[in-house]
């Protein structure tokens, strides 16, 4: 029993220490965005790596998510004779919840894990140390552009997810199941209010930052060789998925 309590205590201490470490890491990274040298090319490279390269997988997940939501929504709404509201149902759940959350999880699986592996390898092969001895700050050169790229790219990817999802819903709802095209879009326009869109944007910004922060932090503090890198990569994917869902709850309750 005492052992269990001790273990719990140890775990919570570790958790607090790690959370604190990440916040300091984040502040340092963002602070370094404000001081020269500025490297716009590095930012573009990372937007390409993290954002552009995730576009296809985000479109694919977006399309299927919209399609399945139209299918589910159609049969539920039909029971009440209100299939006309299908567009509104699909758009609201995409914009408020599914878009930001699923985009976040896809980006973390595709780009987050790659970021951890890349930085982790730089750590264990002393590339970060080498940079430091050349008087180039590795957090400023390697980490900061990735953080900014996450904040910039994930909202765009989320918007793409939403749009493709709405079109996927259109394909199933209107073309396959026969909801009228006019009501699909007009119900959407009537029910989606600016707050929904703001909420979605805020979520995607927070998720983007969280995913890349976790990925960079885990990579930067990798230890114990190649095995350490694979462990860190694993932790990145699990931790960012958990954090995305936890944040989602917090932010949703804030916007409701």
């Amino acid at each position: 029993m005492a052992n269990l309590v001790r273990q719990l205590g140890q775990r919570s201490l570790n958790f607090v220490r790690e959370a604190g470490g990440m916040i300091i890491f984040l502040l340092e990274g963002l602070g370094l965005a404000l001081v020269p040298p500025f490297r716009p090319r590095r930012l573009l490279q990372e937007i390409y790596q993290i954002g552009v390269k995730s576009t296809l997988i985000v479109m694919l997940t977006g399309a299927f998510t919209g399609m399945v939501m139209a299918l589910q929504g159609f049969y539920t709404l039909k029971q009440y004779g209100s299939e006309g509201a299908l567009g509104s149902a699909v758009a609201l759940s995409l914009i408020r919840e599914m878009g930001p959350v699923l985009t976040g999880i896809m980006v973390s699986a595709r780009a987050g894990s790659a970021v951890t592996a890349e930085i982790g390898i730089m750590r264990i092969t002393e590339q970060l140390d080498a940079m430091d001895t050349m008087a180039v700050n590795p957090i400023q050169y390697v980490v900061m552009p990735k953080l900014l790229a996450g904040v910039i790219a994930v909202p765009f990817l989320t918007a793409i997810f939403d749009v493709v999802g709405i079109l996927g819903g259109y394909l199933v709802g209107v073309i396959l199941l026969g909801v009228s095209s006019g009501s699909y879009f007009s119900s959407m326009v009537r029910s989606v209010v600016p707050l929904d869109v703001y909420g979605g944007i805020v979520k995607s910004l927070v998720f983007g930052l969280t995913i890349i922060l976790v990925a960079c932090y885990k990579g930067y503090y990798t230890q114990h060789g190649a095995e350490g890198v694979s462990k860190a990569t694993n932790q990145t994917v699990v931790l960012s998925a958990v954090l995305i869902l936890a944040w989602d709850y917090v932010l949703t309750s804030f916007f409701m």
Partner: protein
Amino acid sequence: MIKIVNLTKSFAGHKVLDGINLEMPTGQITVVIGKSGVGKSVLLKHIIGLLKPDSGQIFVDGQDMSLLKGRQLRQFKRRFGVLFQGGALFDSLNVFENIAFPLREKTRLTEAEIAKRVRERLVQMSLTSEVETKFPDELSGGMKKRVALARAMIQEPEIMFYDEPVTGLDPPMTNTVFHLITKTHQESGYTALMVSHDLPEVFSVAHQVAMLHKGRIIAAGTSEEIQNHPDPMVQSFIRGEVDFLEG
């Protein structure tokens, strides 16, 4: 001159350095020898500022390193060149970009001037111009070492640090790398600290040798002095005896 005074460092209760005292004279090559895992890399990382000592001081030309911060520290680091144990070439950059990296980041030289200097270094390291566009994972171990050496020296450092410059290389490549170190040292007269367990080859490049054992420097002197040192620990290490004296 680099002077280390009473340097100690522990990791999680395990004492790696236990009161190191060592002087490295200006313009000379000092080699620290010792078994794998005694803390040679840890010692080197303290001098280049990657690790902070638990206690003790490091003076470079009379300047206490621990007092340097921010801009001053960055200025100071520009006088150093470091060859890391695995080369530490940047995976995402090709050979040319790796060697040019310090110049592009830290100087205002034109691209033409940078290209000229990079090519001079490649020639100096007996590398052909075809390697310029190769990435580190496409290079052999010996090529990696030479590219890393070119990058470490591109800013003409006053002090060079070598962490196991020849470990894992075949005998001809070992000779080549040692030859390059001797040659560049003759040309520019930098101060050097090398850590290595590659005996007896290091005796030919060293002006001064120090042996690290159990957290302390147990012997220091010229190559001959160390080779004829009375301490049985030193002798058995030089002769490559297995598990000498309880390890």
